[in-house]
């Protein structure tokens, strides 16, 4: 099994987030929006776990895909040093992506921070007629991929926590306003847990189905080790389910965020 691919482009989107374009026929062809890859950080041995990263967009013709990574800790720091031309060790595509049902005509993708990344290809691929995106960032300097999102949807709303760009406030506030004006028939959430928890509640309020993309620390990344679990409903009980294999995308009906 080959997991080594060439990086074609490496560029910073802002001070701590960079984008890698990677050549892979296989991954670009097979990847569905919302699926992830896991990336090895180095060979020196100190950092042993792969990092889970969402597939941000794919170019199926060129056989390439993009991932956007924010530097958080040791592993992403090492990844930030990769340059165009380097080989990188990537496994994927893994997990379950978003549902792209033709019956959904009006969708809204709601993302916060690094949660915006998987939404880009979702918007590109989704067959709906009316696609809106609501993206939240900490402040103006964190706003990235705006143009790409604008092109991928019919209407783009941006908000920042401090109001330095777009609306001031949370994406969930914007969501309510947008839904009040023109209800969607499917919502997609990806971002911090409190945002997604609120999102699922709002979806319920508006009686609209939704999907959320969960985050969890991972080991194997393929479903074997059971370290990456989240709570999901199971008949009248609940169980722990692997985010890497059965997710990261879960139906709002199924997930338990507590």
């Amino acid at each position: 099994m080959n997991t080594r691919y060439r990086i074609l482009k490496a560029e910073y989107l802002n001070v701590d987030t960079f984008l890698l374009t990677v050549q892979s026929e296989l991954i670009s062809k097979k990847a569905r929006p919302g699926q992830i890859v896991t990336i090895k950080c180095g060979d020196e041995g100190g950092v042993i776990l792969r990092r889970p990263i969402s597939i941000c967009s794919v170019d199926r013709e060129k056989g390439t895909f993009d991932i956007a990574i924010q530097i958080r800790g040791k592993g992403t720091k090492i990844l930030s040093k990769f340059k165009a031309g380097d080989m990188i060790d990537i496994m994927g595509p893994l997990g379950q992506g978003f549902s792209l049902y033709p019956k959904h005509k009006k969708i809204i993708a709601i993302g916060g921070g690094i949660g915006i990344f998987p939404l880009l290809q979702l918007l590109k691929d989704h067959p709906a007629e009316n696609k809106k995106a609501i993206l939240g960032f900490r402040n103006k300097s964190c706003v990235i991929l705006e143009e790409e999102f604008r092109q991928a949807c019919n209407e783009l709303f941006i908000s920042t926590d401090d109001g330095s760009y777009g609306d001031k406030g949370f994406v969930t506030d914007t969501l309510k306003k947008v839904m009040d004006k023109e209800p969607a028939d499917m919502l997609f959430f990806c971002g911090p847990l409190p945002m997604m928890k609120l999102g699922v509640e709002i979806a319920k309020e508006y009686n609209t189905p939704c999907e959320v993309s969960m985050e969890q620390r991972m080991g194997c990344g393929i479903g074997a080790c059971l370290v990456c679990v989240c709570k999901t409903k199971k008949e009248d009980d609940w169980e722990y389910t692997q985010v890497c294999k059965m997710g990261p995308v879960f139906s709002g009906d199924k997930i338990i965020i507590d």
Partner: protein
Amino acid sequence: MRENINLKVNIGGLELKNPVIAASGCFGFGREYSRFFDIKRLGGIAVRGLTLQPQKGNPPPRIAETPSGILNSVGLQNPGVHTFIEKEIPFLRKIDTTIIANVSGNTIEEYESMAEILSNADVDAIELNLSCPNVQEGCLRFGSSAQKVESVVSRVKNYAKKPLLVKLTPNVTDITEIAKAAEEAGADSVSLINTILGMAINAKTRRPILGSITGGLSGPAVKPIALRMVYEVSRAVKIPVIGMGGICNATDAIEFLLAGASAVMIGTAGFANPMVWVETIEGIEDYMAENSINSVTELIGGLIV
């Protein structure tokens, strides 16, 4: 596989086609990794830790990365031994490799039941996990005193009609005592080491990283400790020893064989490299060819001291 190179080992009555086994808890029931490589290449598979009843496991996060290691606190999430037999054995049996059922109990009676149930099921061996640090009750407590090990093993032995491996915890003052107790009680082999109890803290949030505060350390960080314990135990008992703890490649595996292990298990390293088991088997072959060694058994305990 090269000609003239014999990788077969016998672990207390359990024949393995090669000495590289997937460690329990890291390989599920084999399904997932079978997408990545031909898992019949493996000397054996120790399946995810089983309990008599299904278990939900511990709250997440269940993993933390530490320098050259990981902490896990899965807490034995599993569908229970019956569902395993019904749903997983049929898949596993299609694969030409050795199946080792890893079991944990809360009481000696539970261990006995599982040994009996599995003796009537289609698995090749039973590995008693007396050492999982991730559950409040039960197995860590059994594994940390020679006396308790002796009593669990000897009672289980009455029900186990398959080779019985006893998995030892490293969280003890003298692991050779525990190994000797297992041997005397009738264990066919011992496997070591299970994970070492550890902890990780996020200084920013001032909270433990793991949902259950502490977890079990595995991976390269523990290799020197595991190697020492395998060396000590293999000199203290006559039954075969299966070594594990941080093995990442053939060189590591050979070190364990030289220290006295008759076979090795690999767990954590598979997370970074799903080909690690196959590469290890091939690397051992290469080493044997380079050093004109015909049978891998010649390496066992071959350390020059």
